[in-house]
């Protein structure tokens, strides 16, 4: 039910998630942000059970902060991905967290963005583009077709909106509202909070 999409561009990472929070057939909240900030240059996008997502992401964020306080240095995206994967893997056979994650981050050292795909089973892979949830079915092929290395920001945003338009069009569950965030050398910024209405001939209303 949760849709998360992310890809890497030229010195930035673009991530989007839907903003629905619900219980069985009912939508309880339509401005629920699933892209949580880990530190100044990393986002953890969570999908799956709300409770597990909240608690697990809190665990990761607090431990990353603790590392920063203890060692006066920020962790790289790769380290956070490995740490997160390990936490998921050790929990799987005792008290599994049913959360699927996309970790996006920008490292000042390497001056490039990276994206990691993490699974509730404890798998982790560095990817250029990916998605979680039902969106993955629709968006996978679009990204295979249109993603290329070093997309600049306008091209990237257009590609992201193409993906979200497809999710809104084909997913029978109403997912119109998304939030798009970007991570680059300046940090995390909310690009847009979009409400997509594919009936209006591919017009996209921006709500802010």
């Amino acid at each position, binding site marked *: 039910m949760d849709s998360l999409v992310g890809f890497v561009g030229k010195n930035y990472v673009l991530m989007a998630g839907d903003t629905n929070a619900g*219980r069985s057939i*009912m939508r*309880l*909240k339509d401005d629920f942000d699933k892209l949580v900030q880990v530190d100044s240059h990393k986002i953890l996008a969570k999908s799956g*059970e*709300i*409770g597990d997502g*909240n*608690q697990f992401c809190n665990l990761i964020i607090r431990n990353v902060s603790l590392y920063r306080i203890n060692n006066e240095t920020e962790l790289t995206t790769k380290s956070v991905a490995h740490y997160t994967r390990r936490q998921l893997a050790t929990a799987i056979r*005792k008290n599994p967290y049913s959360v699927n994650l996309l970790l996006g981050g920008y490292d000042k050292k390497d001056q490039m963005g990276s994206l990691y795909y993490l699974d509730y089973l404890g798998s982790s892979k560095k990817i250029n583009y990916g998605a979680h949830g039902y969106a993955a079915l629709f968006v996978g092929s679009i990204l295979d077709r249109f993603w290329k290395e070093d997309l600049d920001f306008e091209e990237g945003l257009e590609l992201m909106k193409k993906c979200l338009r497809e999710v809104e069009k084909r997913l029978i569950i109403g997912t119109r509202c998304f939030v798009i965030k970007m991570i680059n050398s300046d940090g995390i910024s909310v690009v847009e909070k979009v409400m997509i209405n594919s009936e209006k001939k591919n017009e996209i209303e921006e709500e802010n």
Partner: protein
Amino acid sequence: MFTLGSVLDNELKSTVEDFSFETNFSTNQLMLPNIEKPFEFAQSIIGLEKDLQENENQLMFHQQKKEERKERALIKGYKGTTTLAFIYEKGTVIAVDSRATSGQYIASQSVQKVVPINSYMLGTLAGGAADCQFFLAHLGRICNLYELRNNETISVAAASKLLNNILYSYRNYGLSVGSMICGYDTRGPQLYYIDSDGSRLKNSLFSVGSGSPFAYGVLDAGYRWDLSKEEALDLGRRAICAATFKDSYSGGTIKVYHIDENGWVKISDDDASELWYEYEKKEKKEKK
């Protein structure tokens, strides 16, 4: 949360003196009887021993048992009720019904589904009555202790987070809690939805229970931030009335509460069926 293995391991390593009453109370450990094989004894009580011997793959088995327990619990935990709450400019309105059902039998028409946590916070009850009542009363105790220790009133966000963490640690035990924590603190009127699967959501209006879709219909149609107090109370009452009319698991009496900076107040307590016909009469009069 201790796992069974680790606590019992600690007990087995300790000496006889460690089983004194005072030590166990302060270290909060499992008290075991002074017998030959305490681990086996404990397992026999819980009922895993026989099956463990039969089944070689222990992990697979533990997983199965957990799922079975969850399924059994889920069947019982049907949230036959309607509760709603919303925040607006002047405070928080809470409206609940008062019917308790066990299957198709109406067990009671006068259940208290709103539990006071302190003088400015209320919690609503949906799902398993016992679970909700216990955990909300427990939350009340924790909030009281917080206020005594820190000499300041606890915020609604903190109280809801405490309950959320407790319920999250019991998330595979088959509890059924769908509670809303509503209150008024330094940030203004606040409303949180807390679930037994561990979710905690903050929003300006929620409705929980089997009659919630019906209540949402009326609530969403009439809700605005700048309602007057009378309009807000009327909206809450009408929404529950609509839900009791449509949903057979909701009914009894409709109780409405209001929370503002002075604390919570019970506004009204009307019979659901009578209220419906009163509204009808009113509308007929207005048409004339």
